């Protein structure tokens, strides 16, 4: 009731104050996303100010509340949409799973027997799966299965490329 009383007393500007508080909290508090509410509160304030008087005695507090909820939902969905389109461009090259390594050539440290073997890479051994091959064979990473690399012999890949 206090909030409602304040809102009623301050009119549309109360929304700007609330929005500013949300944005401050967004910066100060880690882990919680409050920017949407800050944006929605500011938008609600603008809407209340701009509401044409011709449509009655202004936007009631109920109407303002509904507008706030609506703006919040829209801002989140819009941000997700924007993030998907603009920011998630796959440019992050760290902490990707092993699919980033597809196409590299390795040398088998241990023969692939019954589908399992190991290959040298970066001063350590990687588990690989693939057709049975002797140690020392050059292989190319063609896929990833958890922490295991799927490999094929390089000459087979080259052969396929030639036939293709």
């Amino acid at each position, binding site marked *: 009731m206090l909030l409602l009383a304040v809102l009623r007393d301050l009119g549309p500007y109360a929304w700007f104050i609330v929005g500013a508080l949300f944005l401050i909290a967004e910066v100060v508090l880690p882990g*919680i996303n409050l920017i*949407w509410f800050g944006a929605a509160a500011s938008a609600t304030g603008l809407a209340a100010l701009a509401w044409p008087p011709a449509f009655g005695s202004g936007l009631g507090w109920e109407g303002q509340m509904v507008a706030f909820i609506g703006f919040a*939902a829209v801002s989140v969905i819009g941000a997700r949409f924007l993030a998907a389109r603009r920011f998630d461009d796959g440019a992050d090259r760290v902490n990707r*799973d092993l699919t980033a390594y597809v196409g590299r050539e390795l040398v088998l440290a241990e023969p692939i027997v019954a589908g399992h073997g190991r290959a040298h890479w970066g001063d350590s051994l990687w*588990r690989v799966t693939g057709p049975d091959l002797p140690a020392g064979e050059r292989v190319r990473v063609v896929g990833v299965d958890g922490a295991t690399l799927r490999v094929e012999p390089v000459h087979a890949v080259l052969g396929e490329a030639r036939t293709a």
Partner: protein
Amino acid sequence: MFDLNLGINLYLIAAAILVFVVIVAAVKTVPQGMHYTVERFGRYTRTLRPGLSILTPFVERIGDKINMREQVLDVPSQEVITKDNATVTANGVTFFQVLDAAKAAYEVTDLEVAILNLTMTNIRSVMGSMDLDELLSNRDEINSRVLRVVDSAVDPWGVRITRIEIKDINPPPDLTAAMARQMKAEREKRALVLEADGARLAAIARAEGEKQSLILAAEGRREAALRDAEARERAAQAEANATTSVSEAIAKGSVQAINYFVADKYVGALRDLAAAPNQRTLILPVDAVATLGSLAGIAEIAREAFGPHPAGASPPTPPPPATDPWSDINARLSGVTRAAETAAAPQSAVPPAGPAREADAAATAAPQEGVRTDRFRRISEATEALAERLARHDLGGR
């Protein structure tokens, strides 16, 4: 109406709170280096990658937050019994990285504890299959064997073990002390061997040098001896030549020349003897009296030089006239010689007869007491004269 209005108002407030909570719960920002698993009604559906994500409200929620970065686990110290029953304390460090967040979240409970235990037991089994000496020298082998086993074991968990390193292997203190002693003894052995080797080489070198020097010295002596012999030969040859020359000269001239030289040398030798600084008293040996006989050679020289008789005539010649001073000397010398000869002969020997002048001629004459005493007198006179001369020489030599 009042009640309805209040209801609508309360509903609006509740709706605002609901939207707030839903948005907070549904909108997730995943930080870089983490993957979040998403569960729909408790069942894993997908993994959230770093960045902004929106969950379906009420249906989905976050399951596990998995760290995808490479992580380090300290493997605590543990007692390991080696193949040869030594108890060592070993610790290490394990590096692992989660590559599949869903497997790491759902295939294993408490991933880190699992990896730690796996590592510890495998360190134990690998180290237990090795001797202590192998253990201390084959860390790479231990590391790679443990890594192989553990890496295979964590495959279902979507985890890769990057490396496992044994940090410390501590044998018990008494074993360490024994090892230190062994090492020290080994070094000392090497030092002793090296020293002995050095002494041996030094002795060999020294002996070699001595040998060389002895060989060189012997060669020098040999060379010197050869040259000496040569010199002696040469000298002998020269002597022979000289003798030949002398002989030839004698053959051409008179043999008395020889007698002259001999007598001269003899007197010179006597003089030298008397003049020797360490010889105050000169004792002439008995033989010396006989050798005085060689002075007869001088007499003969004189006789030949002044007398009419040819050289080599053994019978004594009559003395020359008394006016000739040489004749007296000659006679006296002859007397001395004869007397010496007589003294050397046995008493019963035929004494010379007559005065000294006739003594040479009358060798077979009957002995007479007077002549005898006369001869002794003469001998003593001659000896005294000689002694005087010698004394003079002796004084002169001083």
